[in-house]
């Protein structure tokens, strides 16, 4: 029947120091070196490599985003310019066609006026001529009638 050995026991007890202590210390130091070689170094390498990879990837992605944004603004500017230019071209074309139309209209109107004027003048002259002719014929007829009447009597 074992008894409880406690403080100051000569054999056993809870506070029984012996060669276990230095041996355990050596064992733990050895374990430190073994774990350093088997665990801390390789795992650290992998983790740090991954961290580097993530960081560089992230930096690269940021650079790419900046590039994309730059290109986007550039393209937007270009688009805006092109739009403005197109508007200008449209405006010019509209103005051109407007002036052309007006010119053509003016030309046509003046031509029409001229030909109308000419026609009127012709009509006038022909009417005058006809009137004169008619007048002379009436005169002749009147003369003839008077002659005939005078000759009978």
């Amino acid at each position, binding site marked *: 029947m074992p008894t409880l050995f406690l403080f100051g026991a000569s054999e056993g007890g809870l*506070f029984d120091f012996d060669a276990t202590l230095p041996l355990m210390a050596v064992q733990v130091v050895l374990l430190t070196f073994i*774990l350093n070689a088997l*665990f801390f170094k390789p795992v650290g390498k992998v983790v740090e490599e991954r961290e580097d990879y993530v960081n560089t990837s992230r930096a690269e992605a940021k650079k790419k985003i900046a590039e994309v944004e730059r290109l986007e603004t550039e393209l937007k500017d270009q688009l805006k310019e092109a739009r403005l230019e197109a508007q200008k071209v449209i405006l010019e074309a509209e103005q051109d066609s407007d002036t052309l139309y007006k010119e053509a209209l003016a030309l046509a109107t003046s031509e029409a006026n001229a030909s109308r004027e000419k026609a009127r003048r012709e009509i006038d002259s022909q009417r005058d001529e006809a009137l004169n002719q008619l007048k002379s014929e009436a005169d002749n007829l009147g003369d003839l009638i008077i002659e005939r009447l005078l000759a009978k009597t």
Partner: protein
Amino acid sequence: MGFLPFVFPFAELEVGQHLYWQIGNFRIHGQVFMTSWLLIGALLALVVIGTKKMERDPKGVQNLLEFLWDYIRDLARTQIGEKVYRDWMPFIGTLFLFIFVSNWGGALVPWKLIELPSGELGAPTADINTTVALALLVSLSYFYAGLSNKGLRYFEYYVHPTPIMLPFKIVEDFTKPLSLSFRLFGNILADELVVAVLVFLVPLVLPVPVMFLGLFTSAIQALIFATLAAYYIGEAVEEHH
């Protein structure tokens, strides 16, 4: 007897009994080494399996190992500081892993099923030799860390901020290993004793929550020991301005 009132069931519970191995003129506690070798073997097996095929996209055990590595790095970095934590991370990590594996191994593995001629198997950290060995290693480490980093200027620490602190700082060098070793030893041994006593008194249900509490304590003690060790080393290498 007489230190606890329960005499009859306690006959089974062997406190302070050891399985002695004789090596030359020295005697060692066999049960401590048997369990510690088994647990270190399990730890190394886990490490070897986990690091066998490491990839950038971690799988399986590698995840666990990386989590542990990250945890230990954070612990070492916050306590020791950015400059020298790399040198001490393996030591702090080994302390944490060894104590954690010992504590949990002692609590989870049903060692009592294995009969020994004398003493019984249990957590290696429930033996005062183990905890004192670990605590003395910590003391040596922080002295070495301070001296190797700052040379003799390390001793400025003893008169910092005023020389009045000198006796207290000297006393601290003794109380640090003492408190480290006794805290760990006391907690683990007490946990084992409480569980054992409860199992003998009420063999059903009641010991289970206490066992869970024991697992919790075990993990916390490993963390406390490693954190304090790192803190002492950090204190020794810290530059005073």
